[in-house]
């Protein structure tokens, strides 16, 4: 029997506003526990919430970027449940009138583009954090009241890989909007999944499980993978799947039951009386829309077209807005003819140095900044230094902080294109490798490349390989 997985994702996202959703406390991550609190976010008796307008702007911006319809009339509701990290024992959330709904997000799969529906995006407040000790639990309310967006997808996702692509695309957009850090490790992005399986071709949905506690995109993928297999195995053996919430156990790499539907809480939603319903005007929507930058997919298409990039190259660059912006600036500033050289460096040397240092590529510190980098790339195009030399100079410059141009001068790494200076190396190479000489003469072109390599070695990479090739050809054909 063939099965199809049906997956919907619920993403919770910290908005990176300076202050909390309903009070003036800082949202800074990593401060001492309970130092960023006030009567409002502690839910003290008599305190009242006041909506942070920036949080609403960020929310509208996200809704628009996800192609949602922004609702003119919206309101907050209370979601009631008892938990010690929830200061008021209710969460200010949105229930039946979220500020935006009915959007979509396109994801790129190997062979096609797939559109995933966005059911709704709503704004709510985060809870605090429990810290469990040996025989007691402590509460840190610094996180309580930080604005959260809940982004709910339609059950349009059919595989763990699609879920992964959806999350990546979403993260990329959110980073472009600069509304969230999207850091799963810091908890600024969290993801729950609803998953069921059904026989392929059937339209009726199977019984779903809700998965929680995944703390990375890979965790989401792994948990879905496990859960799909678990559900298929149950169906195959004739067992009935029960509707329940399951936790992803990161150590055991399996999902374990948390609570069944019967144990599900009744949240007793009702309209938040402390915050009157409000109107989002068309002007407001247009004002926010103006602040939306070119989004990843548009940028990808433009880069591919304007700079003649392969889809792969474009995607590597476009993934982060800041890196895309920096790279585009470098391409514009590059004085040479072949702008592609900048792209090659951006997808090659710069990325690998950044990876080695474990920093985002847009934050890689290049001594002398962009002028040095551009100068270095231009020197290669101009034939002043070889590509090989340029790469090692770049690595050295990053590691010891010296300017690339200084390293080249100090070590005299200029490419040797003058044939009289190269003659000696060519002579030696021919003498030392009679077999290759014979092979070349017998028509094996590879042998010529080997000889060029030998000359490069002898010149410590400084020889201009094109010139070396010409000299070699001349010598060997003449002889």
């Amino acid at each position: 029997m063939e099965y199809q997985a049906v997956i919907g994702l619920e993403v919770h996202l910290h908005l990176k506003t300076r202050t909390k959703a309903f009070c003036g406390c800082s949202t800074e991550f990593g401060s001492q526990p309970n130092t960023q609190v006030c009567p409002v976010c502690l839910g003290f008796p008599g305190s009242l919430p006041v909506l942070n307008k920036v949080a609403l702007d960020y929310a509208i911006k996200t809704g628009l970027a996800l192609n949602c319809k922004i609702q003119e009339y919206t309101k907050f509701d209370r979601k009631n449940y008892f938990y010690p990290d929830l200061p008021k024992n209710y969460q200010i959330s949105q229930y039946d009138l979220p500020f935006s709904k009915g959007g979509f997000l396109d994801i790129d799969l190997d062979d096609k583009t797939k559109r995933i529906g966005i059911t709704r995006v709503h704004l709510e407040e985060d809870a605090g954090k429990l810290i469990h000790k040996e025989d007691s639990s402590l509460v840190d309310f610094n996180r309580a009241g930080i604005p959260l967006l809940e982004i709910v997808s339609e059950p349009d996702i059919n595989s763990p890989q699609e879920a992964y692509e959806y999350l990546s695309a979403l993260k990329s957009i959110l980073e472009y909007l600069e509304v969230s850090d999207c850091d799963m490790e810091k908890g600024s992005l969290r993801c729950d999944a609803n998953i069921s399986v059904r026989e392929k071709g059937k339209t009726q949905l199977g019984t779903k499980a809700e998965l929680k506690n995944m703390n990375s995109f890979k965790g989401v993928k792994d948990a879905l993978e496990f859960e799909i297999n678990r559900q298929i195995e149950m169906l195959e053996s004739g067992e009935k799947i029960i509707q329940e919430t399951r936790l992803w156990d990161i150590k055991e790499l399996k999902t374990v039951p948390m609570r069944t539907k019967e144990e599900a809480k009744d949240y007793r939603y009702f309209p938040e009386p402390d915050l009157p319903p409000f109107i989002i005007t068309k002007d407001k929507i247009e004002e926010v829309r103006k602040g939306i930058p070119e989004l990843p997919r548009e940028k990808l298409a433009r880069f591919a077209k304007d700079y003649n990039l392969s889809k792969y190259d474009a995607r590597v660059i476009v993934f982060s807005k800041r890196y895309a912006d920096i790279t585009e600036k470098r391409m514009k500033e590059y004085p040479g003819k072949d702008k592609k050289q900048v792209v090659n460096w951006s997808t090659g040397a710069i990325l690998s140095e950044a990876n080695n240092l474990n920093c985002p590529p847009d934050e890689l510190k290049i001594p002398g900044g962009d002028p040095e980098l551009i100068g270095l790339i231009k020197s290669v195009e101009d034939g002043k230094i070889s590509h090989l030399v340029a790469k090692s100079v770049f690595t050295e410059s990053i590691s010891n902080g010296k300017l690339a141009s200084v390293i080249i001068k100090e070590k005299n790494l200029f490419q040797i294109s003058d044939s009289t200076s190269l003659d000696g190396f060519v002579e030696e190479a021919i003498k030392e490798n009679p077999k290759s000489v014979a092979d070349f003469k017998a028509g094996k072109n590879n042998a010529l490349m080997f000889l060029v390599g030998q000359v490069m070695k002898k010149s410590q990479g400084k020889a201009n390989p094109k010139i070396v090739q010409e000299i070699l050809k001349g010598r060997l054909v003449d002889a």
Partner: protein
Amino acid sequence: MNKPDAKSNLNIMTACELIKRLGSKEITSSQILSALQAKIKETDAKVKAYVRVANPVDNPKTQKPGVSGALSDIPIAIKDNICTDGLNTECCSKILEGFKPPYDATVIEKLKAAGAIILETKTNMDEFAFGSSTENSCFGPTRNPWGLECVPGGSSGGSAAAVAADEAIMALGSDTGGSIRQPASFCGVVGLKPTYGRVSRYGLIAFASSLDQIGPLTKDTRDSALLMNVISGYDPKDSTSVNKEVPDYTKALTNDIKGLKIGIPKEYFIEGIDPEVKAIVVDAVEKLKSLGASCQEVSLPHTEYAVPVYYIVATAEASSNLARFDGVQYGYRAEGVKEKLQSLINMYNNTRGKGFGEEAKRRIILGTFALSHGYYDAYYLKALKVRTLIKQDFDKVFSQFDCIVAPTAPTVAFRIGEKINDPLKMYLSDIYTISANLAGIPAISVPCGFAKNGLPVGLQVLAKPFGEEMLFRVAHTYEQNTPWHLEKPKVS
């Protein structure tokens, strides 16, 4: 009638009279305080208007000296559900035992900025304002200064009794379904519930957020207007407060109601009303006519649904508002069992089980039920719809009339213990006051006579939203042409 001359009975004066004497340096604020102190010492052991400390003026909290304003040196009694920085604010509930808010309610900030003296101990109330008799207080009941065997009304019974017994010059209360007006009526003082959004709720410990308003309890309408001038206005900290200019309410005290059109709702005079109260209110309507107003019967057809709608909306909101009292952060905490998995739930259950009184538990359970899955549409949603109809009843009348006049309560003060075991009977004592909260409109209660047993009766005036000036105009004119507000109880 006592004519206040001697400095020893400054406590029986109104704030306006005291301000005049303070201004001419005839008296000092400490003289006012000692007069109050003496009176409290004399009568509060019987009345029990104040809670926690034997004598609230021993250590009055004041704004730093030198601040002067509309209420300079005037002491004010505060209901126990309004937050005062560093002073116990416990809603007369065990569950808030020892709670000292780290901040002032906006009304307290405003009072301090106006130079008022905030009394350190608070006035008694029904726990979390749940009640109409001030019997549901963890500190025991307050007694009516006009008859100590009777209730002062509620939930702001402590504030009303303190003002009536001259143990306070003026006081703040809160009104969710009549909690200022009904005790004002029972105690023979003036009580005003402002328009929803007129006075900031920031720092008022919420009972039902969509209905609660803070308001004044005073000896006459002039003091009420004066206090309203200070506490009204938009507050950026309360999203439900309305950004609308505050007029000088004392300018509305014109002693002239000629030509005003007053509606008398027939639904407020049918079954349930005490015939004596009815007769007194009808006399009051005649008085208004004689003062030049035209009074005409009107209908508020959805009146009969007000009480059921109120007890769904108010309890639903209360069940959520009171969820935060769980023993985690502040107030009373009962220990849970030691077994780890059970200890949290156990702590919650014990804390709330022992911390809340009977009426609080009743309302939390009612409200929780009304919001539960499968019942929400039938109860809460339906109640919201009927609430709109009730509001429309008023809109219709106010499109043709300047105000509405009605009894404040169907009876005079009842005996302590008389209704405490019959919640439905108790709930009906708010039958004439609840609608104003549901509709968000302002309403005032002024003394309009006494029953044969010597207990006061209140006359209620209701106006359209932000029609407080109309209330003052009508109530003041009535007051100035009748002797009722000058009567004083003899507490013995």
